[in-house]
Structures are given as C-alpha cells and as structure tokens.
C-alpha cells in the first residue's frame, strides 16, 4: 500500500520531470490563475475593457508546455492559453501590457484583443479571433520542419466547439497525409460560449475523430498536468521520429464565464459550476507536491506573496505604460522599406 503511494508520488520523476521542474509547473499554474483573477478584477473595475479567462485550463496548458522545447518548438495557442504562454517565456507584465493595450504590448502593440498571443522570440505564432484558423498554420510549421529536416514540432490548441470548423478537418487531414510533426490539442471545456458539448457534437469523445484521419489520438484528464505532460511528451517524440501527428483531447471544465461579456448562469447552473470547482487542478496539484514532500505551507505562502507582487508590479507597470500614438494605426500594413 505505501509502495503504491510512493510510486504515485514519484509520478513526475517517472516521467523524467525533476523536483525543481514540477515545482515550477505548479508555480506557473498558480501564476496563470492569479493573473487571470486580477484581469477579471481589472475588467470589473473598468480599468480594462475585456478579459477572456482560462481558469480551469491551466493544468492542461502547463502540462503541455513543459513537455515541449521552448524557443525550438512552435506554439499556436488560443485565447485561453495563459498557462501555456507563461510557461514558454511570456511574463505577466507582457500579459498586462496586452490587456491594457499599451504600446509596449509584445503581442500586437495594442492592436489586438487580449488573449491573441504572438511573440516571435518565443516561437509563439500570431493568432486571430476567428476560431480554428490556427490549425492549418500549425500544420504549415510542421510541414516546414519536414521540408527543412528540422527536429522541432508545432503544437496548436483550440476549443471543443472549434473542432467543428472546416479548418479543423482540413488541417488534421493534411497533417496526417504528410505525417507531419504537429500536435493538435483540443481543450474540451464542455462549452462553446453557451452551447454545451452535446449540441456541438454527437460523438462520444472528440478524440474519436482521430480515426477518420488515421491519426494517433488520445484522451487525457486535462486537470492532471502530469498526465497531459506524458501524452504531449510522447506526441513530441512521435513527431520528431517522423511518426506523424497526434490528436489529444484534454478534458476539463470552463470554470469562468466565457468572457467578461458573458453571463454564464443564463445557460448553466451554479451547482454545475460548483461541482466542477471540486476538480480544480491547483489544490490537487498542491496536495500532490505536499505528498511528495516537495512543498510546505511556508513555501506556499512565500510563493503566493511573490506572485502577488509580480502581478501587482505588472499591473502597475502596464497601467502606467504609454498608449501607442494614434498614427501608429497606419503602420505595418505592408513591409515598410
């Protein structure tokens, strides 16, 4: 019995994750959550116009990001992926500059909505709002890897509703035919705005779609960062070895409303939401670290304090940062000579 527990507690080591790394994973999850909570507050107090929350998605995002290689692999995240972009180089300050739409915003210089990540230095590929368009782009990066014989993969994430767009189908099929090193990860949070999964699809599991592409496909508990790490790591290896793409379905629940413009209680019950809070990955992962003997309440308090300060400073910095000059709206339509 105690055997089993020890093994369970060594789950991360069995996956090749060091103790330091696993703590970093936890810290990044909390950081993403704290940023997100602050952003919600900032929106509510009228300091920023809009926020789209990733609360409930952090475990999957961080599990995936840590399994990949920073500044080598290419990342095509979607709008909830704060956990992912924070894992691979972006800072809370970057995120704050984006939600305040300031000149220094690295994602777009204040042009795009928050959550529309972009940063070439971190191999984060610019994204747009029309859902699923990034899926074929990721395939294009993977195609380049194959053509140029480079050993990177691309990863692209998107929502469950978005798996019904034509671009999902066309992108996965293309990648499968060409056996490209790309990882498709759907963050299945049970809703597309107000529309529940059963009004979006009639299949049992989204991952069932993989068969139709002849694609290796795997469903995973999106609340378990180590489980996600494992399947993404394996997917990366398959990709690098020339064994083709992988389709991953990470199951979770969207704990926040769709965005700050949404009233989710118009279409789901408080009880349902509360029920799902019980599965929140953050306290569970904390318990795991504690059970591994890697984490104490003291460390937790210190980290919480640090993160609070980080978020405070980032907020302050971004709030005070200058807006872009109006005429900036006219630049970079085409390459300027």
């Amino acid at each position, binding site marked *: 019995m105690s055997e089993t527990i020890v093994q369970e507690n060594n789950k991360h080591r069995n996956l090749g994750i060091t103790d330091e790394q696993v703590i970093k994973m936890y810290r990044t999850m909390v950081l993403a959550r704290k940023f997100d909570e602050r952003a919600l507050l900032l929106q509510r107090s009228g300091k920023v*116009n809009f926020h789209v929350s990733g609360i409930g998605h952090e475990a999957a995002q961080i599990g995936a990001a840590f399994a990949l290689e920073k500044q080598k692999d290419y990342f095509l995240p979607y709008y909830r992926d704060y956990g992912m972009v924070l894992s691979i180089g972006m800072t809370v300050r970057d995120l704050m500059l984006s939600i305040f*739409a300031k000149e220094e915003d690295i994602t777009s210089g204040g042009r795009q909505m928050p959550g529309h990540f972009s940063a070439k230095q971190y191999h984060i590929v610019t994204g747009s709002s029309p859902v699923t368009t990034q899926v074929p782009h990721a395939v294009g990066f993977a195609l380049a890897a194959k053509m140029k014989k480079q050993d990177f993969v691309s990863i692209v994430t998107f929502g469950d509703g978005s798996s019904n767009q*034509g671009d999902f189908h066309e992108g996965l099929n293309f990648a499968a035919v060409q056996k490209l090193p790309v990882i498709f990860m759907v963050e299945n949070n049970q809703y597309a705005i107000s529309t529940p999964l059963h009004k979006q*699809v009639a299949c049992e599991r989204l991952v069932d779609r993989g068969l139709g592409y002849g694609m290796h496909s795997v469903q995973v508990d999106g609340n378990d960062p180590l489980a996600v790490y494992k399947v993404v790591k394996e997917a990366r290896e398959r990709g690098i070895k020339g064994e083709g793409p992988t389709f991953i379905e990470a199951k979770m629940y969207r704990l926040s409303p769709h965005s700050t413009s949404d009233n989710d209680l118009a279409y789901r019950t408080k009880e349902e939401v509360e029920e799902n809070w019980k599965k929140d990955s953050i306290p569970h992962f904390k318990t795991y670290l504690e059970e591994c003997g890697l984490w104490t309440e003291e460390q937790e308090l210190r980290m919480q304090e640090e993160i609070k300060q980080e978020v405070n400073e980032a907020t302050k910095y971004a709030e005070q940062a200058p807006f872009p000059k109006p005429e900036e709206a006219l630049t970079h339509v085409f390459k300027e000579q």
Partner: protein
Amino acid sequence: MAKISYIDAISAAMKEEMERDENVFVLGEDVGVKGGVFGTTRGLHEQFGEMRSMDTPLAESAIAGVAIGAAMYGMRPIAEMQYGDFMLPATNQIINEAARIRYRSNNDWECPLVIRAPIGGGIFGGLYHSQCPESIFVGTPGLKIVVPSTPYDAKGLLKAAIRDEDPVLFFEHKKCYRMIVDEVPEEDYIVEIGKSDVKREGEDVTVITYGLTVHFALQAAAELEQEGISTHVLDLRTLQPLDREGILKAAEKTGKVLIIHEDNKTGGVGAEVSAIIAEELVFDLDAPIKRFCGYDVPAMPISPPLEKFYMLNKDKVKQAIKEMALF
C-alpha cells in the same frame, strides 16, 4: 408609436415574422438559450422553441449551407453570423451558392434566405470584432445587401428581407444597437429593399452614407446649419442593388458629393457610388467627388487612441463636410 432601440426593432421584426409565418426560423451560434451574444434573439427560444431558434455547432459554412438547403425546400431561415468578422468561412456558400441558385437553375430553384451579421467598430473590439465586411460581398450579383441606420428602417428592412424571394445579407451596426432609439409604428410595415432615403434635406453639400455614419452626418449637419452650411444627407440603406436614381438625384441637388463610410476606403461601396455619379453627372458637379472613409489598414486596432483615430465621428465628419462646402 413607441420609441424603441435599433436592437429591439431587429428583435421585434424577427418575432413578428415568426408569428406570421411558421416557416421562418433563426439559427446560429448561441442564438437559442442565450438569445445571442448581443441579445437580438432573446425571447425567441421561449416563444418558438429550440427548433425555431436553433443553437448550432460552431461552423459558419454549415450555418449558411444548411440554411440554404432549408430555404430551397421552402423554409425562411434567418442565419445569424455572430460577428461580421466571422462570416468569412461562409463566403463560398454565400457567393458561390446562395447568390447563384436562381440564376444557375434558370429560375427553377430559389433561395429565400436572410443572413444577419453585426458589423462595425467603436466598441473596443479590435481587429476581429469591428470589421465592416460589406465590400467583400458588394459586387456579387444575385445577393441583396442591406444596412439600416435607424430602428424604423431596421425593422422594416428586416421584414422585407425575410419576405424576399432572394438571399439578403442584413448587416447591423453594433454601435447602433442600443445607442439609436426612435419611433417605430406598432403596425406591420416594410421598408422596400433597394430604396435610399433622404434623411435630411439640404442645399450645399450632399453626403451619401449608410449605417452608423448616417448619425454622424446628421449630427454634423445640425451643427453646420448654425454655421450656415446646409447639408443634404442620403442614407443608402441598401448597398445592393444600389438606388441609382436616388443617388443621382441627391448628387444633383447640391453638385458637391461627399461619400462617407466606416468600411475602409479602397474598394468600398463608396467607390461604386462615386463611379455611378462620374458616369452620369460629371459635368454637373461643382467639386470633385470625395470619399471620407475608414483608413486602408487590415482592421481597426483595439487600443483606445488607435481606435479613436480609426473611427469616424461627428467632428471628423463635420470637418469633411465643411471642407467640401468651402470648395
């Protein structure tokens, strides 16, 4: 007559048409239980049930394509595109299918379909929640395109669109939704598609416009009246087929034409309006035909100073009219 908002006029048109004709139904993303992300379809779900206010999967080409099929059968679908920015996955269905069905079947089949989409900026929507996609579709024969500026027109035009035997794109400026309120009769009426409307009579400068910018023009005109400049304001209302006669009459009236739209200038419908005038009235003009439109950038940025710089407004429009008057 009750005073209602632009958005309520749109909701009322759908509700009344659904009561009148059981073949009318709405479909789209989040239009059912939630009543739409802007609330245009609120109440329809309760009144007409989930089949006639149907939450669809997140797939615009299917929304358009399924609606086309249903329309060919004889239904009267109203397909909602959540934002004009997101209707482009349906372009092939709209242009290659809906618009060509009557023509290609030599009048055997028809496609009485309405596609509604909110357009326009000024709401901190950034590049992909602020677009004016109308110029992509203007120039597609077989397609009617409508953009109301007032609650009265919105209700009357939407009813006309629903009763039309051909596909109609119905664009709603989201900034008008709650901002524009006016009197709308309780009785059933329609506003004919293809007819422009003189929203203000004037003698010095003719402004030709549609959608949100109609209001900027009217506000500017009211102020300019004080300064002794008299502005004639023509609201196109229908972008396709354009009201040639109405346009020429308005242009002739003052001999000075200023075309205004939020959509970016190059390739916008303003070019067509200008070309129509240049084709017919070139020697009757007292000034070059000017266009005052959105900048030619991929779309409107979200950062407040950038958005403000991009958006037209009363003051910018006033300045443009003044310059034209002084020409």
